[in-house]
């Protein structure tokens, strides 16, 4: 029984995705910040030059009795001209009247006051322009009038520089993101390494290995490993209890039965009359019956328990058949039943659990001996066939007597023609369950010429 875990997403992927998302957000913020700072720096540079130019022009305003006059200082524009291919505009107003320059150059939203320049951006002649506005009071005709100077410049060069800086910022952001992604992968790997190592260590264990996990693990995994160890401890205790229980049960059932049987044999030997003899014989029969049932119940328990807890090894069925035959030979000999073992040539090796397969062979052979009359022959054939090994047990007993083979392999079910022979009805159930545990097949048929043929196939792997 092996149930694979149902995965619900991957910690590694989740960790990686959240770290990448964080890196993307941070890189984006970095890009925006750098680009903003760069744009402001470019603007500040342009503003400084525009401001100086505005102030320089404003300082050239001269008040006189006729009004205000100005001698535009072209050096002021040469400062601006240094900045690329941009066009420069200016406008000088006295009050609301344009003195010189572009009369339609837009005014600031609020009038400037003093020589501290007021900066604003707007559209002029289909181009974005940056404008610096300064104001100065000039004496005209003895009265102070407000003179405003606007100096404007298109933003082509400023935008080009800002664009370049933005590209740098984008490159920087991408670089930071790439670095962060790399770090995220490395971090995810190193964070999850103990989990991977633990999983691998548990996976490498054999099915019989129930020792506690001894490796050092991070504190976060400690509760999991503690729980796992506790579980394995309980499982191994339960399993060894089962094994001990089976052995103890056998001992406690069989020892008193042995006493009863010995005493009954003595009583039978000393029986004064036929009635006592018959009684003693039935006692012995009952003892044999219980002993057999006990054996098969314990065998069955062992088979069920071993099916979950099997230890597979390469087994030579020829050797196994020999040892089972040898064990049963004296019992067969008492009935003068000849056990004929035919072991075929070639490899007769199957992979399986020794106890399971032995139980199956013993029960098959024991059945055959039990249901055969005296002075007959029971043949056990072990032969290699395609994909595995076939074991045939043929007897000259009473056959199936019309019972369905499926009915005979059911638990506690016996044939209809065997009431005079003791049995528990578990023998064939054991064989069938072993066949299933080994992914083999078991078939029971009437044998030609009388008797039964039990056919057990065990796959090599």
């Amino acid at each position, binding site marked *: 029984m092996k149930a694979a875990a149902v995965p619900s997403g991957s910690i590694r992927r989740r960790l990686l995705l959240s770290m990448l998302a964080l890196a993307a957000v941070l890189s984006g913020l970095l890009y925006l910040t750098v680009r903003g700072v760069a744009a402001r720096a470019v603007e500040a540079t342009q503003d400084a030059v525009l401001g100086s130019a505005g102030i320089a022009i404003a300082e050239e305003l001269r008040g006189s009795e006729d009004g205000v006059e100005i001698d535009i200082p072209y050096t002021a524009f040469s400062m601006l001209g240094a900045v690329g291919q941009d066009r420069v505009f200016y406008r000088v107003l006295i009050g609301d009247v344009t003195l010189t320059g572009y009369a339609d150059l837009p005014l600031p939203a609020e009038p400037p006051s003093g020589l501290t320049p007021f900066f604003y951006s707007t559209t002029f002649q289909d181009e974005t322009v940056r404008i610096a506005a300064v104001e100065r009071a000039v004496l005209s005709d003895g009265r102070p009038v407000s003179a405003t100077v606007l100096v404007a410049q298109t933003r082509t060069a400023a935008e080009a520089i800002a664009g370049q800086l933005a590209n740098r910022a984008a490159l920087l952001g991408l670089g930071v993101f790439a670095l962060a992604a790399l770090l995220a992968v490395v971090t995810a790997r190193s964070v999850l390494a103990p989990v991977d190592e633990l999983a691998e260590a548990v996976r490498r264990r054999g099915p019989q290995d129930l020792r506690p996990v001894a490796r050092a693990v991070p504190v976060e995994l400690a509760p999991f490993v503690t729980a796992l160890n506790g579980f394995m401890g309980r499982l191994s205790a339960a399993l060894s209890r089962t094994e001990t229980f089976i*052995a103890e049960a056998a001992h406690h059932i*069989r020892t008193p039965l042995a006493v009863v049987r010995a005493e009954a044999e003595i009583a039978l030997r000393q029986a004064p009359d036929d009635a006592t003899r018959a009684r003693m014989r039935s006692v012995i029969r009952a003892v044999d019956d219980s002993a057999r049932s006990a054996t098969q119940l314990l065998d069955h328990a062992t088979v069920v328990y071993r099916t979950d807890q099997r230890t597979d090894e390469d087994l030579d069925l020829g050797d196994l058949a020999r040892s089972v035959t040898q064990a049963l030979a004296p019992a067969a000999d008492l009935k*003068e039943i000849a056990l004929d073992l035919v072991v075929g040539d070639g490899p007769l090796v199957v992979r399986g659990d020794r106890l399971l397969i032995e139980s199956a062979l013993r029960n098959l052979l024991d059945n055959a001996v*039990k249901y055969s009359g*005296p002075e007959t022959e029971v043949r056990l054939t072990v032969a290699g066939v395609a994909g595995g090994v076939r074991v045939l047990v043929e007897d000259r007993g009473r056959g199936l007597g019309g019972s369905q083979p499926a009915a005979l392999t059911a638990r506690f079910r016996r044939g209809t023609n065997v009431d*005079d022979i003791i049995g528990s009805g578990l023998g064939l159930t054991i064989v069938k369950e072993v066949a299933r545990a080994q992914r083999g097949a078991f078939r029971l048929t009437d044998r030609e010429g009388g008797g039964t043929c039990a056919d057990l196939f065990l796959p090599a792997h």
Partner: protein
Amino acid sequence: MRFLLVEDNADLARSVAARLSLDGHGVDHAASLAEAADHLATAAYDLILLDIMLPDGDGRDFLARHRRERRDTPVIVMTARAAVSDRVALLDTGADDYITKPFDFAELEARVRAVLRRKHGAAQTLRTFADLTFDPLTATLTVAGETRELRNRELRLFEILLSGPDRIFSKGQLCDRLFSAAEAVSDNAIEVYVGRLRRKLDGSRARIETVRGVGYKLTGTPE
């Protein structure tokens, strides 16, 4: 034959000893491994019947020590476990055979015979009656230089009759000892085996007489 029975269950030991003595065997009982060692130091046995779970140790350790000390007294282990792998493990430790509790004494006898046959070969246990030589280990009768093989039931029947020459054994008695309780047979089934044994005895001075209405006895006519 002389057995050493090593078994800590007093009831079982008493019953087994009583049952074996019915067949004319001598049995000494040891309730622990220490007692068993004492017995082995002072007497010679034909066979040791050994339990596995004993109060002062594991019977398998005893077996291993027994074999290390190169003692060759055969050992049959009495076990409560029936798996063949237990048997293989026991045989590996040096047991000559094993028998599962509760046991049929006829089967025990058969196993003892097989073990002794493997250990000593023939000759040691030859018995003679009239002009017959009988070897229970190889199951053969020698009549006037001619060796005849006995089948299992013929052998057991002959052993029973030979245990009390001229004593009358009833059909029922013989039946009880020749057939297991699981076999439902009538007392007359014994006649078949008596007939066969008589044929094996042909030409010798030993013969099986029918005592009408009572049973059979083995007698030998003097030369």
